[in-house]
């Protein structure tokens, strides 16, 4: 691609709740065509960072550039319109609504009916097992299926960048593999990915680049395969 500005570039982000600071001077870049992962333990500030990028939490300092435009104080719906897709921690499906309605809501910000219908088909091709259950309430799906629905819902927004917050948490190993494979497929479709994970092993094995977040600060940043070999990472996150 001729355009080499990164898809997402955030610098010097400080954020928190009330007087409690959560993120301190965080900087992250997602280059075009890449899968980037952010690993860290519970409470490191990963979900807060997702909310900051998504526009749900206002940073007290710092800037966010998305697709080259300054999006620091955009509202969440503006971010989605600009091409951001979020798969939130815990799936957060609309449990009482049908699968079809969940997918339709994923395309809320779009108005191009034709393209939405195409994406609908494309998503169902990606998750063929969902096709027969379109009118089932999303809340009645199994954990793994809900994760698929959450990803499908985010893809319905035709994102340029997909934020995945702990997509493998609580899933059986087989399903974790499925999710990992999916991320590769989605990336191949031309969607950049920022994967936030506690499961560093899976995350670093599918990512191109990785960041390690500890108590609100980025403490390490390198190519994913390098981080995988890093003894500190190994000890702290890979249980080796």
């Amino acid at each position: 691609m001729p355009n080499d500005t990164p898809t997402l570039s955030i610098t010097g982000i400080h954020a928190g709740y009330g007087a409690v600071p959560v993120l301190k001077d965080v900087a992250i870049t997602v280059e075009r065509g890449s899968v980037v992962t952010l690993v860290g333990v519970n409470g490191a500030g990963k979900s807060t960072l997702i909310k900051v990028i998504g526009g749900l939490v206002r940073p007290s300092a710092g800037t966010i550039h998305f697709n080259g435009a300054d999006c620091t104080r955009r509202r969440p719906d503006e971010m989605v319109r600009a091409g951001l897709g979020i798969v939130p921690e815990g799936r957060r499906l609309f449990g009482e609504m049908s699968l079809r309605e969940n997918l339709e809501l994923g395309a809320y910000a779009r108005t191009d009916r034709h393209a939405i219908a195409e994406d609908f088909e494309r998503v169902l091709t990606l998750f063929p097992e969902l096709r027969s259950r379109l009118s089932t309430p999303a809340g009645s799906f199994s954990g793994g299926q809900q994760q698929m629905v959450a990803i499908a819902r985010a893809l319905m927004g035709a994102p340029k960048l997909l934020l995945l917050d702990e997509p493998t948490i609580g899933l059986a190993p087989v399903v974790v593999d499925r999710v990992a494979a999916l991320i590769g497929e989605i990336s191949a479709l031309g969607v950049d990915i920022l994967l936030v994970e506690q499961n560093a092993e899976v995350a670093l094995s599918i990512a191109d680049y990785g960041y390690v977040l500890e108590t609100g600060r980025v403490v390490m940043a390198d190519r994913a395969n390098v981080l995988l070999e890093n003894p500190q990472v190994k000890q702290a996150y890979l249980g080796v």
Partner: protein
Amino acid sequence: MDNKRKTVLHWGLGGGAAILLSLVLTDPYLRSVLTLMAISALLAASLRFVMLMGELNFALAAFAGLGAYAAGYMNTALSVPFVLALPLAGLFTAVASALFGAITLRAKGPYFLLIGFTFTEAVRVVYSKIPALGGTSGMIGIYPPLSLDDWMAGIVVATSVILLLGLFAAERSDFGRILLAIRENENVARSVGVNTYLCKVIAMSCACFVAGVAGGLHAFVNTVISPGDFSYLLAAFALAYVKVGGENYFLGPIVGAVVLVALSHYAIGLGGSEHFLYGGAIIVAVLLMPSGILGAFGKVGPRSVETKVRAARHAV
């Protein structure tokens, strides 16, 4: 403990000054304003105590009414002396509120609030149906002993100071910390072995004891009570005192009561426009001073454990 000594000093100075003021004031009108301020402060502090555990006790008006009617009935029909009627009214209210809480505290948030609201309105109809309580025209002749007549303002203020001190101690105790923990996350509190339901019922009962005594004081000060005195507006005003004063401070409801009661005594001369002014004051206070007068003017007096981890304002 230097901090503790400072707290005791504050209470001694503040409470002492209030009691002294109630004794030296000779103007009957200013005395009546002062007693109303003290009773209002008690009601507001009672409301705030339940807010510590994250619930809005809108049945406050009903329980103040129960206290007032209990005190009034004991005094006029059973000839129970004033000094005994007052704590008994509080106890009666505490027991009644424990029963109420045992049923309703299974519900939370808006449900609990709205049940309180409907309970208040229902209890009022019940009073009006009981001739022994004076029906709708109210109960009259609730007099404290003649010898105490000149001291009533002092008695009211002193009782208020003692009860407020009790609430303050409870808030600062381990029990108070449990209530805050319940507000933060009830499930976490339960998971560490706290019987949260029981704690909530006890807290409700303690707060309503105070409300009941406040109601009893109201009955003895006014000598006349009617069902209309205990409409939901009483709780609404108490909430206004808490919010205007500053809900994060123990002194908040007291400051709010003093300011708004003074304001309402000014506004009473405005006839029908009183509501306009009172409503306006609440709106302005809530919109412009989200953490109340105390929040706006800095940290005055003993500050409650800062509890409310407010989520950062969502960009909505």
